[in-house]
């Protein structure tokens, strides 16, 4: 008998059960993905049947596209690394607090998770109210606290990216906090108590006990963040009210790809070129997933 434990006569049944999902996956995911590579080799508006083959022309043009690299790519990296660092720092802090025997823990968990369920469009509108120069919550609060010197035009070009990043952090932290919380909750309490009895401090327990013991889940959370950060779209696109191409501070790879393919009042309509941008996004995600899996490749604790 094979290690799978399946008899030869049972194999057709396995293939039969696997077939529907495999077919759907190939048709709905593998084929479009491969098709994207093909389309990136053409100059094509997306409206006509005729596509002009340009080979690697779109990629050559992309390499020299100053706006793509200096604005869209850089903003994506900032969301990924700066946004990610803030999100995980807050998520660890909150999950640390919420994993204790705090009263009303469930309510706090729900409140923490709440921004995650909101539509990005609603979040964009909400935060643009908060940032309003004259009657927004932020400047009004600063005024109330007598901190006029801190009052800024938060959505001015020089502050726009930072302001959107704050909203992104607010929107995403709850999700990663809940993942980390679930991981921390499954660490046996006696392991932590033993460490304290052996004289370990809070930081030692955190870095040497908790982090190694949730490494597998942390890797999953980081991978999810890497993917979500690169393809982040809704909040940035909605920031300009969805009526215009977002300003530089609200442009990342996904937004740039969308407006290049479909325009937004500005009639760019370059499906082939936008698909080449999509390939760059895919390669970036693949690289990040590879690096994360390498960095976290080690023995997994079983407990």
């Amino acid at each position, binding site marked *: 008998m094979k290690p799978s434990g399946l008899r030869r006569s049972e194999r057709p049944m396995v293939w039969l059960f696997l077939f529907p999902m495999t077919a759907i996956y190939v048709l709905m995911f593998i084929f479009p993905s491969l098709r994207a590579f093909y389309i990136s080799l053409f100059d094509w508006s997306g*409206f*006509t049947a005729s596509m002009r083959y340009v080979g690697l022309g779109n990629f050559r043009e992309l390499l*020299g596209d100053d706006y793509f690299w200096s604005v869209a790519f850089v903003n994506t990296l900032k969301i990924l690394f700066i946004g990610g660092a803030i999100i995980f720092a807050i998520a660890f802090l909150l999950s640390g607090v919420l994993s204790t025997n705090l009263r009303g823990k469930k309510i706090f968990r729900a409140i923490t998770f709440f921004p995650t369920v909101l539509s990005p469009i609603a979040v964009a509108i909400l935060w643009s109210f908060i940032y309003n120069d*004259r009657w927004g919550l932020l400047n009004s609060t600063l005024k109330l606290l007598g901190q006029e010197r801190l009052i800024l035009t*938060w959505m001015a070009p020089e502050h726009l990216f930072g302001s959107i990043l704050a909203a992104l952090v607010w929107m995403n932290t709850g999700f990663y906090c809940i993942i980390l919380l679930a991981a921390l909750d499954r660490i046996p309490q006696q392991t932590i108590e033993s460490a304290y009895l052996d004289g370990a401090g809070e930081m030692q327990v955190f870095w040497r006990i908790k982090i190694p013991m949730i490494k597998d889940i942390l890797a999953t959370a980081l991978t999810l963040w890497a993917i979500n950060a690169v393809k982040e779209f809704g909040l940035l696109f909605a920031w*300009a*009210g969805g*009526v215009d191409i977002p300003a530089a501070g609200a442009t990342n790879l996904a937004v740039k790809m969308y407006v290049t393919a479909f*325009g937004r009042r500005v009639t760019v309509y370059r499906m082939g070129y936008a698909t080449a941008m999509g390939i760059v996004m895919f390669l970036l995600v693949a690289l990040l997933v590879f690096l994360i899996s390498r960095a976290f490749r080690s023995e997994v604790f079983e407990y």
Partner: protein
Amino acid sequence: MKRILVLLLVLSLFAALLPAALAEPVTLEYACMFTEGEPNAQWLKDIIPEFEAQTGIKVDITFVGRDVLTKIKSRVLTNDPPDLVDQDHSELFAAFLSGDETLLTDLGDFLKSENWDKDGTVADQFNMAMLEMYAKDGKVYIVPFSFITSGFFYNKNMFKEAGVEAPATWADFLAAAETFKSKGIPFIGHDGQISFYNAYYYYWAVQRVMGAGNFLRAATDATGAAWDEPGFLEAAKMVFEISKGGKDYFAKGYEGSAYPAGQSDWAMDGAAVNLNGAWLPNEVRDLVENWDWGFFPFPVVEGGQGKVTDMEAYLLGWAIPQGAKHPAEAMEFLRFATSRANADRSVDTTLNIASNKLAKFPDVHKDVGIYLANATNFHLSYDGVMSKAPQWWADVFYDLDNKLFFGTITPEDFISQIKEKTIEFYKNK
């Protein structure tokens, strides 16, 4: 035998008539750029039942919203488009007419046919010079329902209280701005988060200094040499002068104002003027009662090539995609919808200016009407740059224009950077 023959004859006649009797009425599929609650959608919902009753043609309208062309893209590709689609003429042209292929139905014969009111041709209802701006190889493919232009909308009461007249020249404009500033009243209300609103200023300044066609010429000049012409710098200086980096005639925080906060604030007496499209009164009409609207075009410049009789024509219109199943019925709908009575109803419902030149003029746009009546030349919005050089517009112009408009770069830096980036942009193609 005779009886059988008669019976057979009756049966065959019945069989011949049965399909016609059972046939479904033709259903016209219409993909619309408006969303359900918008005034234009309401106008269509009002007139469609009447069209159906009068013609027996059903209309299946879907209010898709501004993404309508994106949404029907795959259907156009598979040669299964809706029978009718609407959008602004620039977007329709760019999507369906700009490449080698022509994806819309030629409306030349339709325009020559009798109009719904039976008092001339369909073409007689329009200013054909406007339609021909969006023609391809001399053929017209898009029929408009709404005419939009851009200019300064102003609060007549505030002007009266400040003792200021609507400015005709740039010098008058600066003087008016200074008067308001001296009284501590913001002169210009603006939503700086919308780049195409910001772009109005530089585009109009170039139109007034150099005349139509020059902005497009510079935008498509791969050598960048056009940007050395002094008119472009002069226009940049005009924009910088009123910006936060110059004399700062805008309401505070305009550079970070998210649409529609700035225009709403302006409508509620927060500022005196707002440079915008003629859709503006419609967007803010619910915010105030008895507001006295006024309009003046972008002021002319002393010694400039642009005249007050040069007018922007931004049109919203219909097109029938190639491959539509019911083009004749779609044309019938256009004939009906562009009739004078229906154009009048569109004015009543939307407060927009109807493209039918015989239709009544909305009261809120009576000042626009004066300039429109005297207009001798029409040009595309943004001088056609947004639709004819869209990627340059998005990747090169917007960012630099925003910086100039918010006063964070000087006019000289704007010109040198736009020249440099234009050369780089075309070199990379």
